[in-house]
Each structure stands twice: as C-alpha cells, then as structure tokens.
C-alpha cells in the first residue's frame, strides 16, 4: 500500500548572515576562509551582527571587511588594535573585533596589541598564525619556525641570526588586562569545532565586559609554504602544534561562568 510521506526539508548548512555571498580571493586550501566563517557563525549565534564593527588588517585578509556583513574599517599594518581602541572607547556597547595575521600582530603591530591587552581594552582579536607573510609572497614572519624556508630565509630560518619564533598567546597571557587568551588550530574538523567554541567564548567575554580577549588560530598557507592543501594540514599538526601548543593561556575570573551559562 502506497503511502505519501511528507518529507520535511531541514536546513543543515547555510551561509551565516554575517558572511557576504561574494567570491573569495583566498588561495585553495587557505584557512583564512574557515576562520572567517567561524567568526561569522558566532556573530550570528550571539545575535550581534547589527552592532558589530570589525577592523581588518594589512595582510591576505585585508579584505576581511568585504566578507563580513558588518560595519568595518581597514587599519594600517599592525594598527588594528589601536583603531579598535578608538572605536570601542567611543562605542562601548558595540561589539568590536580585530582580525590580524602574524606579521601584522606579532611584528609591526606588536606594541599596539601588547598595550591594548595591557589596558584591558574590551574587544576581541582573532589572530591568524600561519608562520609566514602570505600577502607579500612568503617572507619570514616572527612566527616562522626554526629551519622553515621562506623567500627571506631561503636556506631555512637560522635562529642564531633571527632569533626564535614568538609565541603570542603565551606573551599576551601575561598582560593583566587580558581576560581570555587561547590558542586553537584549524587543521581538522575536531580542532575547527574547538576553535569555534573558543571564538564564541572570546566574544562572550567582550559582551560581559571582562576585558581583552584573543583567539590565536594556527592556520594554513599552502601557497607560502609551497605545499598542497592536505600537506598543509599535516604540516600544522606535525610542525606547528609542537612549537605552538594548543591550549588556554589566560582564563580570567568570570570566564568559566560564561561558558557554563551557555
């Protein structure tokens, strides 16, 4: 006997409202796009898109403001935390975030991020650590691993000459004004899900007015590393994670309760 079953259509996947529907300029296998999506999903889930102001860096994600469907500004190289400070001080009830690469945040802009964290500026930073300067064609970054070849360390990074890579999450965890500083990775689904939870917590920290929050994300740059996208994922896991351990570096009082409330 024939039955006509009504199949109810259920949306299982769609573009977050906080993300624009435009073609991407990122390379295949680049995880900037994944990070964008996670931030956008979190803004949607928290219902804050209409009161969010993003600050884009100089780097491959210079056009982040085109992708996010929020108000946005484009900062000078490394200055996003200073700009975010200016915005947030005028509009404390808005959600303000910076999105920055490792050249932007850990080299030219290190003073701005350290002092923003120290002052406890109540905004959120998404820090993309891909161990290289992507946009300018793959030069050594402050985060480039010992021995890693880049166009400006052609025989591999020599720590005798250039020092060791800088660990920003650890460094900023020492800032008294930092409320939430963690490192996550984007190299597999499990880590991506963990990264998203951290991004959500970071924005919740801001909404609760607890102070500076940053999520460092180990991110793939297959083009700069001159590897295939799958190799890039392995490279993060095998090379980057040992030097940049994933984990929570600063969880200030009050942050745990936020997570529980959810």
């Amino acid at each position, binding site marked *: 006997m024939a039955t006509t079953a009504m199949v109810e259509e259920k949306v299982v996947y769609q573009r977050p409202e906080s993300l624009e529907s435009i073609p991407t300029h990122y390379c295949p296998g680049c995880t900037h796009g994944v990070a964008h999506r996670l931030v956008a999903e979190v803004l949607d889930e928290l219902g804050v*898109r*209409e*009161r*969010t*102001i993003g*600050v*884009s860096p100089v780097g491959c994600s*210079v*056009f982040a*403001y*085109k992708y996010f*469907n*929020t*108000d*946005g*500004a*484009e*900062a*000078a190289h490394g*200055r996003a935390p*200073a*700009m*975010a*400070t*200016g*915005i*947030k*001080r*005028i*509009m404390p009830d*808005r*959600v303000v975030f910076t999105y920055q690469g490792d050249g932007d945040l850990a080299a030219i802009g290190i*003073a*701005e991020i*350290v*002092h923003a964290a120290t*002052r406890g500026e109540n905004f959120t930073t998404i820090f993309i650590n891909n161990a290289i300067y992507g946009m300018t064609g793959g030069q050594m970054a402050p985060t480039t691993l010992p021995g890693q070849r880049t166009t400006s360390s052609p025989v591999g990074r020599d720590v005798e000459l250039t020092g060791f890579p800088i660990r920003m999450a650890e460094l900023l965890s020492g800032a008294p004004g930092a409320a939430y500083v963690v490192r996550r990775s984007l190299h597999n689904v499990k880590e991506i899900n963990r990264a998203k939870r951290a991004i959500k917590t970071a924005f919740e920290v801001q909404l609760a007015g607890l102070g500076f929050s940053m999520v460092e994300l180990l991110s793939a740059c297959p083009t700069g590393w001159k590897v295939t996208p799958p190799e890039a994922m392995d490279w993060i896991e095998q090379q980057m994670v040992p030097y940049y351990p994933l984990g929570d570096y600063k969880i200030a009082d009050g942050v745990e309760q936020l997570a529980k409330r959810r």
Partner: protein
Amino acid sequence: MAVELMKGNVALAEAAIRAGVEAYFGYPITPQTELLEHMAKRMPELGRAFVQAESEVAAINMVYGAACTGARAMTSSSSPGISLMQEGFSYIAGSEVPCVVVDIMRGGPGLGNIQPSQSDYFQVTRSAGHGDYHAIVLAPASVQEAIDLMVEAFDLADEYRHLVFVVADGLIGQMMEPAELPAMKPIRRPRGDWALTGADGREKNIITSLELNAPDLEELNNRLQAKLAHIREHEQRSTEMLTGDARLIVVGYGTSGRIAETAVKQARREGMKVGLFRPISLWPFPEKRLSALADQVGAFLVVEMNAGQMLDDVRLAAGGQVPVTFYGRTGGMVPMPEEIYDEIVTQYNKLTTSAV
C-alpha cells in the same frame, strides 16, 4: 564668558573640549604636554575618552578609530611625534574621516630641541603623509586666536570630512595671555550616515583607504582633489595690517607674524610705508589675497622661524611680479623685533634706491 589668563596649550585643550571633542589620544612631548595633561583631567570628568597611548603611531590610529564612529576626535604632539603620526594622517585623509591634530612645533631636525620653531611647515602643508593630498592647516598667533581656530578646526574637519591641523610653537603653547573661551557646545548627535555604528537597519558601512583597482583609485583621487580644490577656493584665511599704501609687505604667520607686527609698527613710526600680511590658513595658502597685493606692492619680505619654507608659497603667489626676500632664524631661535626691523630697513632702502 569672562576673559581669563590662560596658557596656550591649556587654552587649546579647553577650546577643543568646548567644541565638543569626544576623544583625545596622545603621547607626552614637550612643548605640548600641558595640552595632554589638561585632557587627562578634563575628559574623564566629562565622561569622554582619554587614552595616553603607547606611541604617537598608536595615538593617531586611535584617533582614526574614534573618528570612524563619527565622533569628534583629536590628538596633539610636537615635531618628532608628528613624524611618527604621518602614517595615520595618510590613512585618515585617504578614507575621508574628520579629525583635528595640534602640532606645537619645536626645533629640528631629529630630536632637535624644545624651543619654538616653524620648521614643520613643509611637513604639514605639503601632504603630512604619503600619497597625494593636503591637510587643512591653521596657524594662530595668540592664545585667543588659538582658541578660536581650535573651534573652527573641528567645524572644518566635519564639513569636509578631512584632516585639520592647528599648528603653533612652544611660544604660543607656553605663553600666558588673557583670552576668552567659548561656551560648551553639546556633543554632536546623531553621527554621520557614513559612520561605523553597527549595521542596524541599514547596509553596512566600510571605512577604508584601500582600492586595488587603478581606475577606481584614480576616481577616488579625483574626488579627493575636487574636494581640496573647493577648500582651496573657499577657505583661504589671512589678516593684514597697514597694507593699503605699503611699498614693502612683511609676510609671517603665527609667532613670526606676531613679532613682525612689532617691527612693522616701528618702521611706520619711522615713516616707512611697510605693511604686514599674516596667513592664518597655511593650507590653503591665502594666495588670492597675496597675489592681489603683489600688484600694488614693491616687494615682499618673508619672515619665518625656519630656513625658508612658506617662502616658496609666497613666491608662487607673487608670481615673479615683485622681489621676495627672506629673513629667518632656525634651531629654536626666535627673531627679535629689532632684527626684523633692521631687515625691513635694508629691504625698504633697496626699494627706494631702485625707484630713483
């Protein structure tokens, strides 16, 4: 409002507050520090934003951020700090957000000294940063004028969504003079429709100076230049004294203009037909009035506390019609009225002897 005795730097700060500045970001440097210190006290009292930044680079980028929200925002510094802010000036001009910057110039180059100087004229009037633009530059010659121009600077910044400088030197910054402050203006609300306030019930707003496509960036430049052409046409400011029958006109701005005034008056007492022309807007340079004066005068004598920077603008405005000579002191040396007087006599005598 009553007339009271005020230090220039404090007067500038309080005038900005009265003009409705909502955010001040700065870094200490002599000889402007009293401005920052006044802000440190007053801004929190009024519930407005004050941050002592980690550097001038950070300070100007905080200004940039605050200005993006449509708030009146400012910073102040002196020559070495202004050099560090150039990156921010350029981004602000490129993305067309309004803000005000005070430069209390000091002797250079390098660390130089903290004495009064006008050696940043080129730096502030040419472009104040990389790229192709001019900032509006206003130069007061007294504490009262500093107050008045500070208020006007915010109005101009808003009107044109542009970067406006108020430039003076340690003499005006540190000097006590009787002056009158304006009444407190209310904070301007609502924000401009271009401002970053959150895309609530409207399309998102973007503030950027980035445009990778050359034809589009040229179009943006054309728009910026059209705005600057309009400013050039409508915002030239100057004042003059005894120019009607003058055969020699002394041209000086700010402190040097003020000292020249004393010298010009003395020359008049000695029967010399000498006048004073004092540019108030250094950009746009008051070229219209100056070239009109070039038609009637025998020569210009430019006086500056530098090696001759505005001199170029006076020459351009004079258009080769009359001789333009120069007297300047550098390194933080302030010319005495007698020095300028002597130079007036020298130049004036040349005029009268060449006439016979």
